[in-house]
């Protein structure tokens, strides 16, 4: 437990990212650093650029200017698939699930397993058994036990269960980083609590999480650091210990500024040893 936190390399970093849509400037030199093992909340008013910022990292947008790094290595994503190949998994607000397909099929959508031997190579047959048992194992690993039947269609699940499937899919494939976009926006109280527990579970297993949320109490409950976006830039990075909810709202709206010396630009949490 003697890790020197100030020497940690960010696992994901963006420097001075710019993204414009016609005359609308979504990102105006935004920077973001995510350190190993932490939960970083990204908050901001509508139009502050938090969605655009996240979409750069998940590969949905490519920034017009600025640099992005994964594990200190410079990257440029042209698609969500490329971001995924670098270990960045995003759970989009829309969840990106196919409602009519079952849980196992959804977890393996786009990276299906084929049967070994000639059935797989010539007849392209899917290994449904393996996908089902592995999907079950992944869900169990994450402590998700509310899903009884892995062959159930996703549309028959509740909002929280769907979220669980989407998170499990993101976590299942040896990912380095998971980005969650408003994971509790459509959920009830109990389901939100389950998702927050899942986020903490991921962190305890050494997987860092970027959480985009509007919900201040939830952000203060799970985040190690809070990145406040404003007008396409990073307004400040604070922690739940150094700032109150009112402070964060004040920074979001521009009523308060925090000098860089008082911000929390270095990690605060000792990363857990990754265990998958």
């Amino acid at each position: 437990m003697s890790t020197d936190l100030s020497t940690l390399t960010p696992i994901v970093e963006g420097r001075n990212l710019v993204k414009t849509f016609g005359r609308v400037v979504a990102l105006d030199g935004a920077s973001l650093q995510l350190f190993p093992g932490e939960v970083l909340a990204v908050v901001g008013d509508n139009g502050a650029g938090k969605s655009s910022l996240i979409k750069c990292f998940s590969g949905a947008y490519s920034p017009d200017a600025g640099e992005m790094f994964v594990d200190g290595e410079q990257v440029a994503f042209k698609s969500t698939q490329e971001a995924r190949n670098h270990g960045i998994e995003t759970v989009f607000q829309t969840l990106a699930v196919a409602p009519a397909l079952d849980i196992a099929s959804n977890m393996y959508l786009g990276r299906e397993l084929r049967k070994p031997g000639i059935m797989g190579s010539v007849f392209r047959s899917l290994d449904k058994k393996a996908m089902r048992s592995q999907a079950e194992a992944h869900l169990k690993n994450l402590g998700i036990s509310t899903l009884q039947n892995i062959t159930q269609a996703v549309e028959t699940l509740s909002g929280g269960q769907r979220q669980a499937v989407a998170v499990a899919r993101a976590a299942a494939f040896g990912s380095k980083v998971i980005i969650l976009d408003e994971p509790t926006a459509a959920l009830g109280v109990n389901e939100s609590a389950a998702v927050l527990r899942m986020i903490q579970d991921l962190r305890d297993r050494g997987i860092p999480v970027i959480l985009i949320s509007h919900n201040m109490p939830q952000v203060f409950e799970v985040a190690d650091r809070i990145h406040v976006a404003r007008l396409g830039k990073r307004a400040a990075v604070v922690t739940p210990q150094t700032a109150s909810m009112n402070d964060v709202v004040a920074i979001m709206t521009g009523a308060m500024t925090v000098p860089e010396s008082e911000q929390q630009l270095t990690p605060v949490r000792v990363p857990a040893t990754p265990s998958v």
Partner: protein
Amino acid sequence: MERQTSMQKVQGVLHKYPWLSPLIVLVIALILFYFANSRFLLPGNLSFLTQQTVIVGTLAIAQTLVILTAGIDLSIGAIMTLSQMVMANLAVSATASNVLPIAGQNPWISIFLGILAGVLAGALNGFLIVRFNLPPFIVTLGTLSIWTAISLLLFKSRTIQEPELPDALKWLGSTIKIGGFNLLYGVIVMLIMYAIFGYILRNTAWGLHVYAVGDDPAAAQLTGISTKKVIFSVYLVSGLIIGIAGWVTIGRVGSASPNIDPQINLDTITAVVIGGTSLFGGRGTLIGTLIGALIIASVENGLSLAGFDQAYRVLAVGILVILAVAVDQWIRKVKA
């Protein structure tokens, strides 16, 4: 947990097995028509029934693939006509052909080129839909007219009669006798195609992606599926199926006519919809479509045996389609 009412249980079962409701309809129809005229279930009539199913049944495979992606293909009849006119005009002797310079080819090469024409026409649909983001309804409505016109212009609006056609083209019109049942080769080809495409849809990643793209294209895209590739390939493959259906049709009808059966496009859509496939995409089975095609043929055959006018058949099919879509809407509201 609240208890499910029996109605919800029925809803749940129908939701899980979308081919179940058409199967029930088919069984009821078979029983009703049997009581109306006991000849209905004789082997001779049943084999006729399968022969009546074969054209719509084969084409409906293509229509199912397209509708699963939430698309629609209105040009199926026109592409099939194009395919069979290409085959027939290439294969017959120069005197019988409508396009003299290219006539008299090897019949098997002609069949191949006819099917290829179907593939290319399907690919054109897919290209227009994917490349220019046009709605499938509009694209295929356009190509319906285009291929109809080209078939008529290129092949001089003349039907190629049975005696002029080489045997290879009519081969799928032969039958095997099994007791009193005459099994058409074309029916065998149709069933093999159902088996192959049923396997592909259920057991390959491509099949799964077809469902995912129809279900929610944005979600499919975000999971890393190339929705454009999937949609294009579906129209291309459906062109292949339609081309083969052109060959089946020459066998069944015995001649090759450039005039499209105006009923055929609607019948394929009807078979798919009655078969429990959702017009909104992402939900349905091929076996349901086969049952749907059998229902249409049974209604046609049964009503005429029972002495009803042809118009009643059209009426009955119309009612069935609306019922099928209503049932689909109801089933889609299923809760866990």
